[in-house]
């Protein structure tokens, strides 16, 4: 009923538009998107693969999106979006019918369901609206007021957030040009998002006027040269608690201030080579005085930089042979509050694979054993957001602290396409005791506290108190189209990652047998006890074929093997203690993934299906001094320092998951 009421309201608005105005028009359109999930975890906490405590692999649900756009006059344009969101809007809810409130006397909590629960009721929400003015003045081209995804800027400084939240940030955007459009400028004021735009995932008690200002100038004097300057200033304020004189207004004090600027240049001296340079600098000040390290930003003042140089050689001696080189360094303390959280890939390297993105293999309140498809996209923040994503999307990972070089050669001969990659990574976050002689420093957020732990090391945890890490990545991608029938698209890949991290490499942090300055275990007696060594392989082979003129099918198989030494048994600290959380993961990990995909188009309707079977095993490998003990149930294993028991037996995993979807745009 609610969508019908909304449509009626919209039709009334159309009727009220000035009649006979040449430019007055309203376009009403939208999308119906239906999703079907299936899997063997049988979770029904939500219609998305990954969302903390809100994910699932079961059920069907519908999203309705209504898009209004139009013009009031030659100078005024508008747009708005209404949409319900996938959450627990299952078809089995019968439209969110029924339900009510339930009071639990024991815990004193009230839970709601059905029509009374916003996650289940299928309500259509106002997602965003904007008005765009093009006044025709010489000094300004346009002003956009309202919702914006802020993709006009640079993901290192001001960037996008989740695609589904693309209208969530609102502000003012003024744009203009000069010098016959060879110079363009943008000035923006963005209201800081109170849910995550500051330390501790908040902009504090006072939020309504907190803001980020951005400015950008692009100059293109001739085709071969492009220059860009960009600056951003974020200001998070709070009421001054010491000001008790209310007769003359209320004083404010700064909670967080962040100033970031960037300079970019791109030059193409000849048609076979392109050069580009980007440099960013951040000056971050926080007065938030947090006692928690669960925060997407630093708990200390910091100034740092990020830069990268790209050389693209488009033709090396022969046609179809090219090479791209990227040298980069992202400072350990580079902080831009408004940097892109996902929907951007700021580095050329593939980085890690999304398949190992789960923080634990069996966390049922998250993506699960299969992880995400494809490779990770790197973002220049650790305020990474992979919530409300499905397994067929790419995982975002932080590249804060990364520095190194990536070389990507490409070669094509007839229908065969080859692309390689070699990346060497060092880290600006390689230090002992945070370089503060204090391994318990709270200046650096911990988040999942699994930086460099496990196979991927955590997608938003760049900081560990002890790190001495290097990473090498080598990849070969190939694709070949066989001229048979409608064309068989063959593809494959081989990837290798070698990673070493000596972690503690100063003896002062070893245990003396009585106490330990850092690790909770007095067994930590040797610098090698915490060394990490990962050898990772991945291979893929597959084929795609246009089965009919409307239906395309693809099948692929992936094999993963990770041999991980993640410290000895003496090294493993208690779960949740300090900077580390997660299970024991040293040993051999093998994963096999079988995937079948279809895409079908039919006159304005699009249908997709992605079905996967993933199975694997983990064989623990215990290092250091240990004794196998019986856990009391006849299972032999090792008792870690924190009391956790790790069975000395192979763990088997199996995951089936399916996502089918249909989209109709009208």
């Amino acid at each position, binding site marked *: 009923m609610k969508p019908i009421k909304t449509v009626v309201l919209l039709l009334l608005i159309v009727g009220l538009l000035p009649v006979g105005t*040449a430019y007055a028009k309203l*376009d009403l*359109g939208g999308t119906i998107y239906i999703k079907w999930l299936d899997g063997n975890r049988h979770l029904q906490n939500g219609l998305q693969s990954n969302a903390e405590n809100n994910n699932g692999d079961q059920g069907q649900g519908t999203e309705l999106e209504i898009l209004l756009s139009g*013009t009031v006059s*030659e100078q005024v344009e508008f747009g708005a979006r209404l949409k319900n969101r996938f959450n627990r809007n299952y078809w089995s809810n019968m439209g969110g019918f029924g339900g009510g409130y339930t009071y639990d006397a024991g815990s004193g909590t009230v839970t709601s369901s059905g029509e009374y629960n916003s996650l289940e009721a299928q309500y259509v929400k106002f997602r965003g609206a904007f008005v765009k003015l*093009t006044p025709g003045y010489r000094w300004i*081209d*346009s002003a956009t007021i309202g919702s*914006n*995804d802020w*993709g*006009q*800027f*640079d*993901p290192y400084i001001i960037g996008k957030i989740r695609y589904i939240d693309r209208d969530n940030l609102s502000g003012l955007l003024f*744009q203009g*040009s000069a010098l016959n*459009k060879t110079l*363009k400028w*943008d000035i923006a004021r963005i209201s800081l998002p109170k849910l995550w735009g500051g330390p501790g995932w908040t902009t504090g008690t006072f939020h309504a006027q907190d803001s980020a200002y951005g400015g950008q100038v692009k100059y*293109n004097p*001739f*085709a*071969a040269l*492009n220059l860009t300057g960009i600056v951003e200033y974020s200001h998070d304020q709070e009421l001054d608690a010491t000001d008790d004189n209310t007769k003359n207004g209320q004083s404010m004090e700064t909670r967080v201030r962040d100033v970031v600027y960037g300079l970019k240049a*791109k030059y*193409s001296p000849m*048609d076979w080579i*392109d050069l580009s340079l980007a440099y960013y600098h951040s000056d971050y000040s926080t007065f938030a005085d947090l006692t928690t390290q669960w925060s997407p930003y630093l708990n200390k003042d910091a100034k740092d930089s990020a830069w990268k140089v790209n050389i*693209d050689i*488009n033709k090396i001696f022969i046609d*179809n042979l*090219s090479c*791209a080189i990227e040298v980069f360094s992202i400072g350990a303390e580079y902080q831009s509050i408004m940097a892109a959280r996902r929907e*951007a*890939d700021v580095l050329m390297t593939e980085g890690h694979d999304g398949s190992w993105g789960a923080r634990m293999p069996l966390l049922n309140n998250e993506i699960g054993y299969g992880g995400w498809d494809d490779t990770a996209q790197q973002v220049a923040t650790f305020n990474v957001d992979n919530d409300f994503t499905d397994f067929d999307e*790419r995982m975002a990972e932080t590249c804060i602290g990364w520095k190194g070089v990536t070389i990507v050669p*490409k070669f*094509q001969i*007839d229908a065969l*396409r080859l*692309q390689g990659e070699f990346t060497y990574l060092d880290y600006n976050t390689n230090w002992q005791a945070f370089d503060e002689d204090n391994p318990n420093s709270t200046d650096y957020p911990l988040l999942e506290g699994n930086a460099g732990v496990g196979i991927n090391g955590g997608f938003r945890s760049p900081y560990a108190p002890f790190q001495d890490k290097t990473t090498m990545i080598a990849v070969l991608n190939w*694709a070949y*189209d066989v*001229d048979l029938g*409608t*064309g068989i698209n063959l593809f494959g890949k081989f990837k290798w990652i070698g990673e070493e991290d000596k972690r503690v490499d100063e003896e002062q942090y070893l245990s003396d047998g009585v106490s330990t300055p850092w690790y909770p275990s007095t067994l930590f007696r040797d610098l090698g006890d915490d060394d990490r060594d990962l050898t990772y392989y991945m291979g893929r082979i597959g084929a795609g074929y*246009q089965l009919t*003129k*409307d*239906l*395309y099918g693809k099948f692929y198989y992936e094999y993963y093997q990770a041999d991980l030494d993640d410290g000895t048994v003496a090294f493993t600290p208690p779960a949740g203690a300090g900077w580390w959380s997660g299970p024991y993961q040293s040993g051999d990990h093998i994963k096999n993934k079988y995937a079948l995909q279809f*895409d*079908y*188009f*039919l*006159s*304005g309707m*699009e249908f997709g299906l992605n079905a996967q079977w993933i199975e694997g095993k983990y064989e623990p490998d215990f290092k250091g001094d240990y004794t196998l003990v019986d856990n009391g149930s006849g299972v032999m294993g090792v008792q870690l320092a924190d009391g956790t028991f790790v069975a000395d037996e192979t763990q088997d995993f199996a995951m089936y998951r399916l996502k089918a979807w249909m989209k109709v*745009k009208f």
Partner: protein
Amino acid sequence: MVRKMRGVVMVGLLSAMLATSAWSATVTFKDPVGDDKGPGNYTYPTDAVYTPGSFDITQFDVTAKGSNVNFAVSVNSKLEDPWGMGVGFAVQMIFIFIDTDNKPGSGHTEGLPGLNIQFDPANAWDKVVILSPQKQARVLSEAKIKAPDLLKDILVPNRTTGSGKTIEGTVKLADLGGGDPAQWSYQVIMQSNEGFPAKTDLLTRKVNEYEGQHRYGGGNDADCDPHVMDLLAGKGEGKPEEVQLQYEMLKYECDATGGSVKRATLIMVHK
């Protein structure tokens, strides 16, 4: 008799060799750098994904290989895939109009929906090849709805890929009507892949008076202006004078209500 047979065989072999060498020839056209301005004043959308030069055609190659014809278009910017299209490029969409018979008045003079162009009757097109990062089925599905009368002459490669600075796709020579691609006339239209097109546009991106985040600027808010960022002009040799020839070709005129008074009228280039 034997000598005659040898002679026949030799002639046949020679003919086959000549035919093969003709079939594997590449026809190349060049376009000046920096003319990605449509009729002279068009500007790019403001989103960062539209990198400078990404709609600037620099070269167009047609290569006949056996029973297939490969079309390759190079641009003045490294191809990227910010939208995850999975084929090596994302923001570009290219229409290659072909006059296969070079007969004045034979073929179509109207452009495809969303381009707002027409062709001079002496340069009517017979086939159009669309290079899009969208799946073939989606492009054809859109064409079926928005250009049903032209559908039989719209070709979309089974797979279109981008690498380096070049986008390419291959279609069957038979689907193009057969013949010698070296003798055909061409016009290459550079547009943008619009995944959320207007109801009457074939996956094309609009040009407005002022650029928007995902709209070109410098044109007209109505549909009287050509939605073309770059094309071939003159003899397709990449000479500086071809820039002005392009601007002249894309000249248009709109009335006060946005109706078309003079639509941009294109001509082909040929070797």
